[in-house]
């Protein structure tokens, strides 16, 4: 969102929030929606996306004194640096951190069912589906088949191996290579974890 003529820029809000913390709320109002969508599209998990959004803003608030206005500094870029760090940590631990919220005393809140639906709507499954289908078609035929059997259809490796006609070990390797290739192909479209 571009600031109007009388509005503060994001940078002014963030820098100003050191002296007047309530300015952070204005910054939050501007960035919260897009941030939630950012996480939703990368985690595909509304609960986790909400949790990460909360932790990111809590951490941004806690460390707002470290943001400095310079000619080239962007408050948004600074915020998304925190967001990406949260995302990669969540990837490793399968859950969002609560450290900043605990420190500030921000309560951990669950999602209600309607929010769940609304956040899921942000994900745009259709676009994800198209991207995945597109990326899948770029794999080798063997990898495509292995990934489809294992990941899309959810069959055990023994099944995958039997259906492809190879050893279980080879099936595992094929799925794993296919998935890493898939991740590489999807990264620019769908976003990545790190």
């Amino acid at each position, binding site marked *: 969102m571009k600031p109007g003529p009388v509005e503060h820029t994001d940078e002014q809000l963030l820098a100003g929030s050191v002296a007047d913390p309530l300015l952070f709320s204005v910054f939050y109002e501007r960035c919260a929606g897009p941030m939630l969508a950012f996480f939703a599209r990368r985690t595909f998990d509304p609960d986790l996306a909400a949790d990460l959004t909360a932790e990111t803003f809590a951490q941004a608030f806690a460390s707002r004194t470290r943001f400095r206005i310079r000619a080239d500094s962007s408050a948004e870029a600074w915020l998304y640096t925190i967001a990406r760090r949260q995302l990669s940590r969540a990837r490793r631990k399968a859950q969002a951190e609560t450290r900043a919220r605990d*420190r500030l*005393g921000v*309560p951990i*809140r669950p999602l*209600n*069912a309607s929010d769940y639906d609304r956040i899921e*709507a942000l994900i745009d499954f259709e676009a994800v589906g198209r991207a995945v289908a597109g990326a899948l078609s770029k794999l080798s035929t063997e990898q495509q088949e292995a990934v489809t059997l294992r990941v899309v259809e959810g069959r055990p490796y023994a099944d995958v191996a039997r259906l492809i006609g190879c050893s279980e070990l080879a099936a595992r390797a094929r799925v794993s290579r296919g998935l890493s290739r898939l991740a590489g192909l999807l990264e620019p479209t769908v976003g990545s974890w790190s």
Partner: protein
Amino acid sequence: MTDDIEFLKTLGDDLRAVAATSSARSHRPRTVVVAMPLAISVLVAGIVVAATHVDQGRARSGPASHPATTGPFVRGGPVPPQYGYRLTSVVGSSPLDVWAFGAHQHKFQPGRGSMSGVILRFDGSRWATVPHPRIGEIRAAASGGPDDVWAVGDRRVLHWDGSSWQRTPVPRVPGLEISSISASGPSDAWLVGSRHGARLPANSIGSHTLAMHWDGGRWSVVPTPNVDHRYNGLSSVLALSPSDVWTIGAAVRKRIGFHWTGSGWQSVPMPSIPHHTSSGPSALGTDGAGGIWAVGATNGPGYGDSLYFKWDGTRWVRVPSPHALTQTPGPSAVSGSDPDHIWAVGNPCCDRYLLAHLVDGTWRNVRLTLPARVRQFEAELGGVVTVSANDAWAVGYAYGQNAGKSATAPALAALILHWDGQQWRPVGVPGLFSIGSVPRPTK
């Protein structure tokens, strides 16, 4: 696109509250004093005698700068916004055995987090805190009798055996979240909720329903149905007897309900609410005579409607709500001592406090009249128990923001209301930052 997401609004409020505290902290620290309007002092005289203040260690450090007996209900600052008490549930088996539960929100402490459970007991004359094993915010409670009381917080379950609170181990379930507990007797209690995370069966993300049963000796998981491969959760349980247990919850775009008949869960169709597919009742309560009620709210964009449903023996029947459409509607608890004396309480509503009374089959709004200085608080009631026609308790918290002219930060005060058959009155708790407490003596 994200404007309707309640989570973002709440997070915004939470952050603003934290920011307000930071602003206040940069000013000169002052003592927080809980003052009580004279009218209430008189009402509760003889019940509450102790003075109290927020977050004791912190509040005591500043010099008292305001006389406590005049001015706004809560004076001075800074009171960190999340500091204070919130009560979530109240249960009782007799007029001399009533329990209230909730949380003390405090500064983060390693190993304790920022919320600790609070357990209060009313012995017929006064409320007092009761020692208990360490637990986080207590979100649900149940009473099967004077020697059989349950409290649930985080992933822990505490039990009162008549003389002390003890932890009861629950099976390890990854991503466990307990939302409700109910007991029909010492060897029959149920808790429900959901389990989140990746370790779900194939093709599942989100969460699954979860129920556990207490047989008198231990908790064990009892499989529950799921209707969606993504989000499923149970929000409330009501155990009337070992073969008559009800639970309700939500899945993506639908409400779900199950009935335990002693051997398995049977699906109970939940009424659909036009234009509000994922809304519905979220809390169950008994009318004291085997009848059951389900209450909740629609949470549509912009406004919502309060929901009251009665089980007529074969299906849920919607009963008209007495409340206007509002931003934050909805009764969150319902309890009756007999079919003619049922109370429902909930979020701040049209009348700031939501209290509804069933009179001759019709729900009626009850306006709570409090002195003006108390009314400047926003309040939310989370639990209610109706012991008899002239004995009911409702608990929640009051949230005061910018009380008075000075830049005071908000604080949470425990709120306990008692119905004596004529009116609701706030009752304070000694040693706890609560509405209805008496003033701290000023020097």
